[in-house]
């Protein structure tokens, strides 16, 4: 039990996928204009990351390893994730229209989110079992969502403040990302 607890804490805070591993910076800057969008994006990421990690875990275990095609991991994962996201989008549209409505516009964006691929590959590198893979990917995605929401909240306040023209938008966002990253650095060493 402790093992899973530590896994979750570590994935959310210590090894935050965004602020400690710098994966998925594109939506981090692009979708953090307001909290509503950020929450939608975060939820979509949680959903897709868990699906993708589970699916790629199965591909790795039952296709790539038996046929010794490990070296094709990255390209196969990209293909699988892209196809999966498309499939999931279609499936949701048919099966769960309300969920599709709330996640819909973010799903296609996630195809190119390297955090998804990153989490899937990390799970393989660490050689997690299926349960651990799912728990880890879920927690990592939560960490992503947390960072995104924090960023959005900060940027909403930025909208109201007076910034030099040259700092408005992405520059201020990147500086903020750096500072947040430094703040999250404080978690380092909490869990070895």
């Amino acid at each position, binding site marked *: 039990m402790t093992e899973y607890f530590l896994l979750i804490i570590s994935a959310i805070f210590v090894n935050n996928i965004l602020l400690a591993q710098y994966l998925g910076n594109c939506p981090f800057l692009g979708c953090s204009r307001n909290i509503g969008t950020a929450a939608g994006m975060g939820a979509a990421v949680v959903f897709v990351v868990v699906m993708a990690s589970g699916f790629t875990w199965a591909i790795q275990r039952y296709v790539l390893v038996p046929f010794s095609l490990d070296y094709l991991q990255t390209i196969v994962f990209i293909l699988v994730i892209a196809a999966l996201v498309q499939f999931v989008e279609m*499936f949701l549209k048919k099966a769960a229209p309300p969920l599709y409505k709330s996640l819909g516009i973010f799903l296609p964006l996630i195809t190119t989110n390297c955090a998804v691929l990153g989490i899937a590959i990390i799970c393989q590198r660490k050689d997690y079992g299926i349960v651990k893979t799912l728990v880890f990917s879920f927690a990592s995605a939560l960490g992503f969502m947390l960072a995104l929401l924090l960023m959005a909240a900060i940027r909403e306040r930025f909208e*109201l403040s007076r910034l030099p023209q040259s700092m408005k938008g992405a520059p201020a966002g990147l500086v903020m990302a750096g500072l947040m990253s430094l703040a999250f650095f404080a978690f380092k060493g909490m869990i070895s």
Partner: protein
Amino acid sequence: MVTSSILVLLGLGFLSAVILGVASKLLYVKEDPKIAEVEEALLGANCGGCGYPGCSGAAAAVVAGKAGCDVCVAGGQEIAERVARVMGQTVSYREPQVAVPGCSGGDRATALYRYEGAMDCRAQALLAGGGKKCGLGCLGLGTCVRVCPFGAIHMGPKGVPVVSPELCRACGKCADACPRGVIAVLGMTARLLHLNQTDDCLAPCRQKCPAQIDIPRYIQNIKRGDFAAAVQTIKERNPLLLVCGRVCPHPCESVCRRGAIDEPVAINPLKRYVADWEMNSGTRLPVALAPDTGKRAAIVGGGPAGLSCAYFLRRLGHHPVIFEAMPELGGQLRYGIPEYRLPNKVLDWEIEGILRLGVDVRKNARFGRDFTLESLEAEGFDTIFLGLGAWQGSNLRCENEEAKGVLSGTEFLTAVGMGAKVELGEHVIVVGGGNTAIDAARTARRLGSKVTLMYRRTREEMPANAIEIIGAEEEGVEFLFLAGQTRVITDASGQTTHLEYITMKLGEPDASGRRRPEPIEGSETRIRADNILAAIGQKPDLSCLYEEGGECRLEQTRWKTIVADPVTLQTILPHVFTGGDVFTGPDIAVSAIGQGRRAARFMHEYMTSGEIRPPERLQREMIPDTLFSTLDGYPELPRVKIPEVCAEDRLCGFEEVELTISGEEAKRESCRCLNCGSLCHGEEPEFVMIEDDAA
């Protein structure tokens, strides 16, 4: 290895393609092709003005029936028609709307705030509560300017937003963004229906006016020389501006803030000026009407309340029919107010304007005799307005009051108003101190009699308008104050010869705040009187409500007025409304006009939605905070003089006494208006500038 990897990837790619292909076939969700067509018809600007995520979102909403064909705020009528063609619908008239900034800025909107760098009205309101003393005032940071997708708003020279109506698409973003509710997006219907609320920005004159006319606005229109706009502003509240410009005792002027500096602005003469300007221009300004609703309303009584009610119902798209007992419309305006104050041709022109909008009239139709509530209901009227007025004059209330030669003031005025030949003796006594008494006295004077006006209190307590009293005095009406009638004395034939009265002295103030007159015993005196006109008071005549069985479905008060909700004017019968003198007892014309609109407002609600919801926070009394009188630093400007015909010439007939001012005078007078809001020009706000260090 290369071959195998290529094969594997090809295989995987092929597999994915097949799966997705099959899935897209299996999981196909039928999308209405209309969505694409509607999207095609829309502007494609993706401005978001409609509140949907882009034009495709709006198109989906239209097809789903969640939005109407007029969803596109940027496109206007043309786009709405294109969308309607796709949807197979037709667009009915779309009421033009425009954003209206409500703050005049006063002195304070020029002071901008910086609070920890926040230059946004919303942040300002959240962080510092706005910082201004006036809770309604514009914060002047221009958030509305920034949110407007069409560039229709800019900051004016006074630090308050100015809307360019030709660019405004009425998307409502500015109204949503403004934390103070300064900007409202309103169409004509909403403006006609609005009643003063305590959280509106209301100058004292607007609070006081019984018709709730937006006085500062029409004066500003005059100041800019836009007389047509001034007329339209007044007509949103009062269709009888020619009448009110002449006879209104202008309660608004009594609270005008300018009065604290020198004299109140001549609000009513300005109204009269623009009203006369319209009449003399030879053309009537077009009055906008809402689309037809097909609902019908019966208006019983063609006086100021009934005319006002009919006018507003017509503008709201209904079909009113006025039932008038007398041969002509106008009620007390025609039959109670003498020609020299309100010429019939002026009244006719004004009434014709209302009727031309599509109001039907049935004259010589007396309620209770020619028709009843039941017959109106049977005829299919959706609502009924009872504006019967207060026509029954009071008796003289003294001994021998039935003697020959004693008349009621209202009957006398009505007879003269109808053009009947009324013979008066040489000596006429008018008893009473109100406007009817003065009207009767001045009318009798014009018929050649020597007139004495007898009142039981003193001149200070007279309820009549001061200017009328002076007018009467100039025309040679004698006044006999502190005199109470006790007995009418007749000769052998029963003809009145004298009136006996007793001298009074003023005692303690009574419930109405006026000092109660008390008779001095033994001071009875006689005065020559061939005719006595009793103008002591009027009351409604409700006998017509009683149908054959003697049953009355409406309640009445002990003052013989109809019982109704004081806000909605709805009687105990839900489809019957009332207003004017029959509800309040004798009152001034502008009150009746205001109630006519209020009744029309709730009748509209009753006819369109079936239920009545009075708005909250209605302003009923003067708002205390707004009644300050400390105004420093304003130069004195003399009030315009209203020209009058000199007293000798007046007595020759019933020519109009008061004349109108000139256009130049009107413009000059309009500059005297301080253009107040609710707290503008008050004491300096306690804190004006909050600067952060960085600024």
